[in-house]
């Protein structure tokens, strides 16, 4: 799995902890990393992803569907799962303010042993680390 993930675009470093099933991925600074591609690569290596959390910086935008989203690259934005934290960011949509967010991008549905990851992924905000 480590080799599978290490070959993905935008991945700088992969650290795997066999003990607790944790995989830490450090992206390159080129902004090319694709979380959906990482999920697929993980499944392709025969391992099931239970959860994926990300820390990301970007601007708050409204996507084509009108949902509030975090834009992390010119061509990549993650719509928020609505919660109190996401509602607090709605006023920043289309402003120059950049925020750094830690959130859950994927969680395996309960009751299923193995499922295909199904993008588009939505970001459940767990923590707003900064607003600038």
């Amino acid at each position: 799995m480590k080799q599978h993930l290490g070959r993905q675009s935008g991945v700088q470093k992969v650290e795997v902890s066999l003990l607790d099933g944790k995989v830490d991925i450090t992206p390159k600074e080129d902004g090319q990393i694709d979380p959906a591609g990482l999920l697929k690569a993980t499944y392709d290596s025969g391992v099931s992803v239970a959860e994926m959390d990300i820390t990301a910086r970007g601007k708050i935008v409204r996507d084509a569907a009108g949902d509030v989203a975090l834009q992390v690259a010119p061509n990549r934005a993650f719509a928020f799962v609505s919660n109190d934290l996401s509602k607090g960011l709605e006023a920043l949509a289309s402003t120059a303010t950049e925020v750094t967010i830690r959130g859950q991008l994927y969680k395996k549905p309960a009751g299923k042993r193995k499922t295909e990851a199904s993008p588009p992924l939505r970001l459940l905000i767990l923590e707003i680390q900064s607003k600038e």
Partner: protein
Amino acid sequence: MQTIRNRLAMIALLGVMFAPVDQAQIKHIEMRVEGMT
């Protein structure tokens, strides 16, 4: 005077080139996986 201006311009240029870029991006990803041996 011209030399000083050139040096200042060079310093400014180098500052822009090597300043840390804190742009929009994914900074870290953490996954919890199952079935890993």
